Every structure is written in structure tokens, then in C-alpha cells.
């Protein structure tokens, strides 16, 4: 495969994100204008007089023609200006900067748990197909995925926090132990500032919500890795490796598992969007001050501007992730080309 085709593939893929992004942003813009009235009236309608409302509407540009508003929204979204929420003094961008690190740490922790559990149990299940271990592994995968995250979270709180007292019930750190703010990522900040007490309490708080979220997603990986393992174990090159007398361990790990994991990259990326959704529920249960909590607060206050800003951010993240998956896939699998 020539280098040219890889570059062509990457360029075509990047070009494809433009319409996708545009469509997503348009959907977000339209979706939040489906509701009658406008953000000001919905949020503050019963607290301000008619003139005051009119004033605020003018100020925020809600009296401009729809197309002007749409244009302003698009330009803002692409330049990092996500609007000024009606119910928060900060701009949406500031709200995101304050809350995204919390959500990122939670999802990153959860993703690691999911990968360890999912790849481990999935590969073993595939290898030991139709044995009691396989049936057990599959059932575990199905049942854990069937459990609502928020319910598992509540049970984990009940058992590990309330009954055993091993972990805190919620929050990112206890008391005022937050590390000095450098990046907002507590794990990173506490390492940077060598604040080991902060690192301890941060990780301590991460365990319960991160594991809850991670186990549920591990369930998806188990099923997926297992099926891929079954397929690769049947492939000719695995048979060829066995025929050459390659040790069974090496066959499993080097030949089968490695290839079985290629499609997992795609799934990891796709699950990331799901994981963000799951984070909303986990954050609610564990009072985790992340993006999910922020959007639920805006939704509760009927603050359309805040809601729109955060969803726009989600849309941007999701488009970047799906681009990244395809690029990584293109790099590791030369068969994927346009």
C-alpha cells in the first residue's frame, strides 16, 4: 500500500468531519429552538417585568432574525464562545473548563477498568468457548450491562460507603484537600505540585464511581472481545502458527488476541460517547462536579443557553473522537482506505 493512499484516506476523512460537525451543530441549534418562548422567559419569566425581559432579549440577541442567530452560534461554537448562561455568572466555556476535568478523570478511570475487565474476561471466554467459564463470563457481561449504572452506584454506596465505610459516598476530594489548581485535573495537579495527600484523597474518591461506571462498560467489551477472539482463533494464520509449532500461549497472545483487539479500537471510541452519557448518571449518584452535573443543573433551571453550550461541547468532543478512531484505524489497518 503506497503512502499516497494513506494520506488520501486521512484527508478524505478529515474533510468528512466538516459536514458532520455542521449537521450536529444545526441539530443542536434547532433542537433548542423547538420549545416555545425563549431562554429568558423560560428561566426568568416569573421574576422580571416585561420591559426587563425585552431588555435582556435585546442584549443577548434573541430579537435578531433566526439566521443571524444561527450564524452567530456557528461562529461562536467554532471559536470557543459557547454563550453566556442566564443562570450562571460564568460563560459556558468557563463552566466547561471548570467541570470537564472532573468528568475526564472519571471516564478515564472507568475506561481503564472497562478495558482490563473486558479484554481479560472476553479473551478468556473466547478461548474457553462453551465451557462453564465461557457461559459464566458471558452471563457476567450481560448481567452487568443490564444493571442500570445509577442502581449499581447506589448499591455500591450502600455497601462500601455506608456499611463498610471504605470509600466516601461522593465528591472529588474530602474537605479542602483539593490540589492547587494548575490544570484542573486533580490527579495531574497533585502530582505536579507534589501534594500527595491530595492525590490520595482524589484517587480514593475516584474508586467507587470509576469502578461502577467501568464495570458496566467492561460488560460490553467482554461480549465484543469474546466474539472477535472466536473469529481470529478460527483464522488461517492462527492455524498456520499452530502448525508451525508455535507455543499455545504465543498463539493466543501474539497472533489471536492482537488481531482480535483491532476492532476493539473502534468500539472503545464509540463507547466513549456512551461513557459520557453514563457519566451523567454516575455524577448524579456520586455528586461528582462534572459536565453531567453542569448540564443537569442547566436543564433543571430551564437555562437553554447553558444547555445548548454544553451540548455543543459534547458534539465537538464526539466529532473529534470519531475522527480519531478512524485515523487510528487507518494507521493500524492498511486495508481501510477510500
Amino acid at each position, binding site marked *: 500500500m503506497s503512502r499516497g493512499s494513506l494520506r488520501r484516506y486521512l484527508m478524505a476523512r478529515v474533510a468528512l468531519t466538516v459536514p458532520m460537525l455542521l449537521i450536529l451543530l444545526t441539530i443542536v441549534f434547532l433542537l*433548542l429552538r*423547538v420549545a416555545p418562548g425563549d431562554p429568558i422567559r423560560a428561566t426568568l419569566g416569573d421574576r422580571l417585568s416585561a420591559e426587563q425581559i425585552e431588555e435582556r432579549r435585546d442584549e443577548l440577541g434573541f430579537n435578531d432574525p433566526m439566521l443571524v442567530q444561527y450564524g452567530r452560534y456557528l461562529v461562536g461554537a467554532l471559536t470557543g464562545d459557547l454563550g453566556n448562561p442566564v443562570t450562571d455568572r460564568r460563560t459556558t466555556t468557563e463552566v466547561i473548563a471548570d467541570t470537564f476535568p472532573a468528568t475526564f478523570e472519571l471516564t478515564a478511570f472507568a475506561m481503564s477498568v472497562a478495558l482490563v475487565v473486558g479484554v481479560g474476561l472476553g479473551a478468556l471466554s473466547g478461548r474457553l468457548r462453551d465451557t462453564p467459564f465461557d457461559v459464566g463470563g458471558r452471563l457476567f457481561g450481560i448481567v452487568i450491562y*443490564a444493571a442500570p449504572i445509577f442502581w449499581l452506584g447506589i448499591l455500591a454506596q450502600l455497601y462500601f460507603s455506608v456499611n463498610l465505610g471504605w470509600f466516601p459516598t461522593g465528591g472529588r476530594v474530602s474537605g479542602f484537600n483539593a490540589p492547587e489548581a494548575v490544570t484542573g485535573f486533580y490527579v495531574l495537579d497533585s502530582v505536579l505540585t507534589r501534594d500527595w495527600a491530595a492525590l490520595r484523597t482524589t484517587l480514593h474518591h475516584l474508586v467507587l464511581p470509576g469502578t461502577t461506571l467501568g464495570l458496566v462498560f467492561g460488560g460490553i467489551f467482554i461480549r465484543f472481545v469474546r466474539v472477535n477472539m472466536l473469529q481470529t482463533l478460527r483464522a488461517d494464520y492462527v492455524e498456520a502458527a499452530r502448525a508451525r509449532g508455535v507455543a499455545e500461549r504465543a498463539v493466543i497472545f501474539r497472533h489471536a488476541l492482537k488481531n482480535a483487539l483491532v476492532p476493539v479500537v473502534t468500539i472503545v471510541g464509540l463507547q466513549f460517547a456512551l461513557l459520557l452519557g453514563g457519566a451523567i448518571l454516575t455524577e448524579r449518584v456520586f455528586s461528582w462536579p462534572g459536565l453531567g452535573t453542569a448540564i443537569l443543573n442547566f*436543564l433543571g433551571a430551564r437555562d437553554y443557553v447553558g444547555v445548548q453550550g454544553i451540548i455543543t461541547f459534547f458534539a465537538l468532543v*464526539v466529532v473529534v473522537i470519531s475522527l480519531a478512531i478512524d485515523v487510528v484505524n487507518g494507521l493500524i489497518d492498511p486495508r481501510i482506505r477510500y
Partner: protein
Amino acid sequence: MHAVRLRLAHAWRPFRQASPTARFLVFSGVAITVSFVLVAFVGDAVYPYGGTQYQVEAGAGTEQLDRLAEPSAEHPMGTTRDRYDVLARVIGGARLALSVVLFSTLLAMGVGVPLGLLSGYRGGRIDRLLVTLMDAVYVFPPLLLAIIVAFMLAAYLQPGVPSAAAAVGVVYIPQYFRVVRNHTLSVKEEPFVEAARSLGAKQRTVVTRYVFFNVVQSVPVIFTLNAADAVLTLASLGFLGYGVQPPTPEWGYDISQAVIDITAGVWWTAMWPGLAIVLLVTGLTLVGEGLNDVVNPLLRSRGLAGVKIGPDHALVAGHGQEETSDPATTGGTVGDR
């Protein structure tokens, strides 16, 4: 009549050939799902309490049910803070979950399948537009999408089964679209479609008779898998307060109401609705996974149950294709003749 029996036998064959594990999984899944349907629609008539009932007739007046009563013979799953019987609410929640799942998947199918057919059959610009649109919706966090739709619909509709079904259903449209579109792309190149076209069949006839009935076979697997997911989405919406109107029994909402009970050591208000979700979702997933195993023969294991992988197998698959492609034996037209 004979044709029907032949088709049934034909449809049954993959089940008989599937591995014992796959068969076990499908049958336990079916058993769980059927019992939920029974509980949901018969349990109500049999069980003495209603889902939103907090008092009983006692002599001349009424008597309130106990608050947060432990599980007992009178209330097998206990009662809630609002004096509701937990079992009655679990039964009511089952009915609600099943109806929302039914209507939401019908909605997703109703939109996704025709659009997929159109996109795959027509191709060109409309195909590109629809694919990008659906991909954009597909990559978006589903729960967030459902929340936003529910939030927006709340401005127009009283939160209830229709609005919940719409919010949940929107999420699954892209999946039906994708599968149907891709399948249509391959089916439309089949010789029998070309034959129909060259015989002068109208485009409408080609699509509805020849393409549709072949493509529609891939829908049941997605349906069962989506149904499982839809139960979870509905519960999540309910948990966050964007489900149906309280005090309608709904598992997710009931769990959210039970959060405060937990610190007081009351476990039964959160436990039972949660277990009901786990059980129903597991049942539906088992059916879906099993169907997938059965329908997707590549994953069938060698040697077990006498299925051979290789040329023999290709023959079986080819035969199936041939038979279903014959309009005289397709499900939709048997009754007409």
C-alpha cells in the same frame, strides 16, 4: 398451508443447528421476557394493590397503608415512603417499560427502515446526506439525546408514554437506518432484483416486494438488542426526572425516590425495581444475543450439533437466499395466494 409449514421448518432449522449454549441462552431469554409480559399484563388483575394506591377500604372509611413497611406476607416487597406497595409498583413499572419499549422501537423502525430503504436504493446525494445525518445522531451520547428530546417535548406534552417513547425511540433510529441501508445496498445488486426490474416491475414494487422482504430479516435481531437498551434508557430518564409523570410507577423514578431511604437502612425500595430492570434487560439481551448467534452462522462452532463450516455451509446459506428471494414463498405474499 404446506408452504407455511415449510417456511416454519426452515426458520426453525438454525435453532436446531445452533450450539447447545446458544439454544440455552435464547430459551432462557424468551422465558424471562414472556414471564415479564405475563406479570405486567396479568399480574395487575391478580394482585390486590394498585401501583398508585396508598390506602385500602376498611369498614366504612379508608385506612392508609403503612409507610416503609418491611417485606412481609401482606406486602411481599414492602412499601415505600409514600405508602405504595413496592410489588404493585414493580408490576406497574413492567407494564410501562414494555409499552414504552414497544412504541419507541416501533417509532425507530417506522422512521429508520423506510429511510434506510430509500437511502440504500436511491443512492447518490440523498444517500450521502442521510448517512451523514444519521452518523451525526449515532455518535452523539444517546442518553443525552434522549434527555434533550424529553426536555423539549415536555414543553408541549404532558410527560407520559408517548413523550417517553419518542425520547427513547429517537436514539435508535440510526441503527435501523444503518442496517437496512447497508443490506439494501447489497440486495439491490442481486439477480432477482435485476430480473424484476427488467421484467418491467415498477420501482415501488421492486422496493416493497423484492428488496423490503429480504432486508427486513435483519430487523428482529436489532429489535431485541435495542429493546434491552431501551429499557435502560427509559429507566435512566426516569431516574433523572425526565421520564413519565409521577406518581406513575416507573422503575428508574422509583429508584431515584429510594435514594434517601438507603442511608436509613431501607434497602427494599431500591432493590426490587433495580432487580426488575436487570432481569428484563438480561432476558431481552439473551434473546438478541442468541438470535445473533443463530442468524450469524459464522460464529457457530465447528463440530457441535453437526454444523459444518466450509463449502457445505455456504450451500445452506445460498439455499436460504434462494428460497426467500422467491416471491411466492416470502412471508408477506403467502397469505395473498
